[in-house]
């Protein structure tokens, strides 16, 4: 089934340049190559049925009926050797510590702005900068309790950070479910490996949330706040609530009285100490942010500022997600930690910088231009496949509002074998590891590997035809 496999001139996770499998992939390659197609197909159907019956689905908004879909699951696991993982882990820890210090700084002393490393106007013009948070203390000075950082590999196999998701990153439930299903349909593949367990993620998350409770009582009331059953990530919210044994609440279940948050129970009102909220700042409190929000809880922000309820993540972390702030993260690491960044950024042209802007406008057809507040693959221009009209149009937009755009060279994401029809073909992948930050950072061993199932596509988002793989961090292969 590997007969027609092509390397396509980019970095391949499984094969080295001469089409021999890399050492850590040898056992998996051996087993997959020996399978016949019908067997593989049977296992795939088994996996799909498991996903469907367990209701592991996401909702597609574009469909009028809001149809539930299975997140396509690719049975070929992605393998990361432990030594390689160690570097990634260190790099991610370093990054989340720096980002967190940055959050604390911009909402307090603003040293980094005063010393001129990050232009103040950039921060004050950021859509997700929250003035309401200035001089508000958060428990343990931690802002980003859960972070999902997107990593990609360039053509030489170097890991690069593509973006940070410091607000409410989703997808972790798929990581856990993928592993469960993988064990069910392909137990044989695990035999030659020691794969690091990821089962403790919900436990770690719960510990992290417990530490936020005001008096560190033994039995704080912790809840997950979801926008509701129609949200595309609803499955995950419910999954995490189940795994941690905490209550899943909607905005309408909560009420603020005298700056304390309560939930409505059959026995009356019950005080809530910690909220793991899966709704954006914008919708959290109609009295403070968007007044048309019916997802939030009026008065929540006051209760939060009084310290009567803890939120994870803190309000205002979106400032780290701003793509115009992203190019400054390596500077932050040097500034706050006096260390060199372990994981590098993709080189980024800031349109607010005069020289960079000039370069961007001259080289539009080679670059990827991204809106600084877009996500999910929306609001971007792939210069190399755009028409001259589209380019001219985008150039106008950039010139009129340079703050809103950054540009990067196209990164040729690494590829990984996926079963397409009857044989294996290379498809582009990325990796989103999840980092928890309680007393200290904990990085989940692995993460969500997303795969662009369309041939030659570079977009891995589930909303645009992406699937996912199980991701293994393995000790040295026996």
């Amino acid at each position, binding site marked *: 089934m590997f007969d027609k496999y092509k390397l396509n001139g980019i970095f391949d996770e499984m094969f080295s340049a001469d089409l021999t499998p890399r050492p850590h992939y040898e056992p998996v390659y051996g087993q997959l190559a020996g399978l016949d197609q019908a067997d593989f197909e049977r296992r795939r159907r088994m996996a799909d049925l498991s996903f469907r019956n367990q209701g592991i689905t996401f909702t597609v908004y574009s469909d009028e009926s809001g149809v539930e879909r299975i997140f396509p699951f690719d049975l070929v696991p992605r393998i990361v050797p432990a030594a390689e993982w160690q570097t990634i882990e260190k790099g991610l820890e370093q990054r989340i510590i720096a980002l967190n210090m940055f959050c604390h700084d911009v909402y307090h002393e603003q040293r980094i702005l005063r010393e001129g490393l990050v232009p103040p106007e950039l921060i004050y013009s950021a859509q997700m900068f929250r003035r309401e948070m200035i001089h508000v203390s958060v428990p343990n000075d931690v802002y980003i309790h859960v972070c999902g950082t997107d990593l990609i590999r360039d053509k030489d196999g170097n890991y690069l950070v593509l973006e940070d998701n410091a607000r409410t990153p989703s997808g972790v439930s798929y990581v856990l479910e993928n592993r469960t299903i993988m064990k069910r349909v392909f137990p044989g593949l695990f035999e030659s490996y020691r794969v690091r367990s990821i089962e403790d993620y919900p436990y770690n998350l719960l510990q992290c949330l417990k530490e936020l409770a005001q008096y560190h009582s033994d039995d704080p009331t912790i809840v997950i706040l979801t926008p509701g059953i129609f949200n595309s990530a609803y499955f995950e919210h419910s999954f995490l609530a189940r795994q941690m044994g905490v209550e899943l609440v909607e905005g309408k279940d909560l009420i603020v009285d005298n700056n304390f948050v309560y939930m409505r129970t059959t026995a009356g*009102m019950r005080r809530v100490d910690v909220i793991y909220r899966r709704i954006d700042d914008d919708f959290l409190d109609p009295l403070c942010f968007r007044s048309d929000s019916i997802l939030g809880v009026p008065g929540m922000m006051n209760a939060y500022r009084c310290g009567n309820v803890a939120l994870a993540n803190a309000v205002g972390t979106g400032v780290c997600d701003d793509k115009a702030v992203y190019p400054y993260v390596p500077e932050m690491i040097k500034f706050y930690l006096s260390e060199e960044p372990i994981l590098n950024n993709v080189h980024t042209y800031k349109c607010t910088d005069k020289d960079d802007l000039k370069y961007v406008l001259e080289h539009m057809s080679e670059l990827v231009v991204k809106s600084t507040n877009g996500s999910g693959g929306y609001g971007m221009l792939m210069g190399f496949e755009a028409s001259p009209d589209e380019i001219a149009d985008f150039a106008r937009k950039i010139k009129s509002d340079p703050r809103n755009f950054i540009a990067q060279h196209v990164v040729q994401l690494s590829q990984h074998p996926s079963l397409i029809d009857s044989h294996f073909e290379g498809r582009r992948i990325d990796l989103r590891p999840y980092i928890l930050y309680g007393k200290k950072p904990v990085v989940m061993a692995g993460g969500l590997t997303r795969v662009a199932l369309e041939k030659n596509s570079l977009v891995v988002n589930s909303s645009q035809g992406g699937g996912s793989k199980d991701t293994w961090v393995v000790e040295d292969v026996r």
Partner: protein
Amino acid sequence: MGCGGRALSKEFQRLGDTNTQRLSALGASSQSKAERIVQSVLVQQNTAGRPMLSRVAEAMYWMSRYVERAEHIARIVLINSNMLIDLGELAPEMQEKQWIGVLRILRLDQRPEVQEFLLADKVAKESRCLLGNSFASFMAVESSKSIIHCVTKARENARSIRENISAEMWETLNTLYWNLTGDDVRYRFEEYPQEMFLSVTMGSMLFQGVADQTLPHAQSWQFTQLAKYLERADMICRIVDTNFDILQSADGSYSAMDTPLRNIQWMGMLRSCCSIEAYQRKHLGDLDPQKLAGFLLLDAESPRNVRYSVNAARTAIAGIAASVHPQQVDQAERILGRLNAQLEYAELKHISGPALTGFLREIQDHLADASIAIENAYFLH
């Protein structure tokens, strides 16, 4: 600050279908909401068990109720389709009456879409081709109270509280739901009615068994029990009511009908209540109207009769009330307790002849009152 939240909560849409209960709208307690909130803020600190969100309790309740309802609809339609085979030979004129009886049990006879169906003379025609296939599939797929509608509602409720039910419960219900979807579902109901209807009744029973064995028997489980038994008691009342009515109106008195025909009818009623075997064993096949009514309404042991269900519902609500506010007397508990006593100490003369209709009506009114009281006390915080 708090007022805003409360105002918002009013617009929340309940997934439940409370129409039937609103018919006899009796407020549970006149105690104002504000009063209740103040009290419960005081109480909450010493509640031992884990509190339960009102929204979750409500979804739990409706999930369970809809599953039970789907089971009854499936059984009633299946049993009646089968009966038509026998009736077709003995009394063709009974067939139409039979279907209208089914519609009455399901409170569908006054619905516009059903009226249309009837006017189009479909029932009469279809029912004459023995199984009334298309009618059965109508009951399963299309009507606003169809089996698929109930299962979908049950799943929607379950989906909104997945973290509160066991994974096994969810998977059972979800599997049942997926069995009833697809473009060919109507075809399957027409071609293999037996199999499809059985899969629903068995699916419901499996779900209830799984719930009993995986959910801690605490508040949330008690809400499922409460809902299940309220639904069951109500359904049995309707079945008994309608069947006695058909037989009575046939010729003024039960005995005037041919014995075989009468027996088919009585056995159909027992089967619709899932009680035929239990009855046969107890009364050795003596199909006497008084014994039948006594068995389906007043028997203490069979879990498929009204008294047993009311008693089980009363136990459930007593458990909930005790864990929520031990000091107060719960309105729904009061209603169900009284009803239970009434059934326990009823005499056969209360349920024989013309008295039966009134007796059944009274039970149903009490059941509706209890549902409203539950809603006011637990869901509308």
